[in-house]
């Protein structure tokens, strides 16, 4: 299945900002994170189509996945 993956802040270092990716069906967020060699503790906030997800969230065709390290501000 085809996915749009967006990385932010320090996760972009040595990776990318936005990428169209092809993943096997039935993939979970955790599979994607492993594929991208992102440490689990560095994937603090995950959005799937703008809705909070977690490592176990199942991905589907054309999903947009955004991954953030721990961040804060205000």
């Amino acid at each position, binding site marked *: 299945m085809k996915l749009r993956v*967006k990385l*932010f*802040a*320090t996760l*972009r270092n040595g990776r990318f*900002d936005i990428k169209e990716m092809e993943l096997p069906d039935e993939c979970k967020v955790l599979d994607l994170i492993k594929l991208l060699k992102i440490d689990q503790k560095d994937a*603090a*906030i995950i*959005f799937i189509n*703008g*809705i*909070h997800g977690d490592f176990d969230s199942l991905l589907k065709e054309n999903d947009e996945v*955004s991954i*953030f*390290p*721990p*961040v*804060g*501000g*205000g």
Partner: protein
Amino acid sequence: MDKILRIDMGAPGGPKVKVDGLGSYAGLGGRALTSMIVATEVDPMANPLGAENKLVIAPGLLSGTAAAMSGRISIGCKSPLTGGIKEANAGGQPAQVLARLGYAAIVLEGNAPEGKLYKVYINKEGVKIEPADDYKMLPNYDLIDKIKASYGDKVACISIGPAGEMKLSAASIACTDMEFRPTRHAGRGGVGAVMGAKGVKVIILDDSGLQNREPKDPEKFREANKKWVDGLRSHSVTGTALPTYGTNVLSNIINESGGFPTRNFKEGKFEGVSAISGETFADIETKRGGNPTHGCHRGCVIRCSGIYVDKNGNYLTKQPEYETVWAHGANCGIDDPDTIAMLDYLDDNYGLDTIDMGAAIGVAMEAGIIPFGDKEGAINLIKEVGKGSYLGRIIGSGAAVTAKVFGVERAPVVKGQAMPAYDPRAIQGIGVTYATSTMGADHTAGYCIATNILKVGGFVDPLKPEGQVELSRNLQIATAAVDSTGMCLFIAFAILDQPETFQALIDMINAFYGLNLDADGVADLGKKVLKAERDFNKKAGFTAAHDRLPKYFYTEKLPPHNVVFQVTDEELDSVFNF
């Protein structure tokens, strides 16, 4: 810090100085002190610009000590913007310097006769008040240049720009930073207008010859401070994210969540976000020879600010905060960092709240005064405020006034104060804080973004009403306590996640004052402050009807999630049940 400096600006024959003991205010600092003094001494029905109002300036309990992050100052009064009690909080150098001078608070009372303007100079010898006619209508940067020529750059200043002198209800009070620039502002609620009404242009604080305040138990204090700093440095938000990207690291994440208010709160995602994100700002600052990692006061270990330089490498302004980038960026449909930085500089220079200015321009754009995305137009509107034209005075009075004058229904305000950078429909917890805070719409009063979006201190689904009241209540209580310590609110990211870091803060307060405070005691302080503030607002005429969002947040769906604010009135009315 065992005395209160009172200056009666309206005394016959000129300003009169009196130094009081702490009396019943002993043990209070920061917001606790400003709110208690205002609640006790100011008639809730007073006109905010009248002689009965008081402007209270208080460093926090730990300001002026070696405690890291303790450089926040609270400025309180009855607000000309909201008509309720106000505490506006700023960084910069003044909190540390004022605390070392021994003052728990400066209270400006009475109003100087119309047309009179003064400067107040305070050092270890005492207080000198002189006419400041040659400072009249000077913007903050020009004022600070003049002061540098007369007093050097080792002093710290608290000042107003033309907006404060014109008594505009979105006028801020500037505090100088480590480089002696007027970049850190007590922005919200029109506190600058009250200082203008008092007739004080600037307070110059000189702590030469003075040392840090000494704790009762230096050994325990040192130990706790070390744990404190270690805790802040090891937490990923306070140790990595904030230093690297600053507060504007939030633009991308709030945009992804669908709660990034765009074009006067019409949409929740901005197509130009990438160009104005924290990542982009940090990149620009590094490439042009600015600095993306810089503290706002000495003793800050988080260093979330930075230095923004123009295309030629010349200083333009400090790194604009997330709220400013959003207000002048997405909210106005502007995606140009240099324009946003210029607007930040102009706001600081004229002495204006960046949130209410961005919101006011967004409203003016909706009214068709200028189109959304008009960079030059936005700059010109802020310049109009500096000039004091009629149009400028309207904008400088904030989003609520601007909406009324131009007949715009969508005024994103609560109690007259503009909402900050989070749409309460897509992030419902912050909507509870906006609606019920004693301050009007204020994200810092109970920062539910932490738990709704950033997954700090747990997780409560931002799109649902469940759990938001309890979240906002607990955060409002904790914040009222933190705002009283002089600590930067960003410490909350670490203390919400790390109990040992929270304990280190309590240990520091105990070691400094010889107390036995525990976590419950901290919460009790927060509750006491909120109750005093609520009580003041009630007497000023506020009812449950004022604890609501504007109607359109309940009826107009916000894309992309197409949600409305769903927390019920009954639930909102239960926030202060404690």
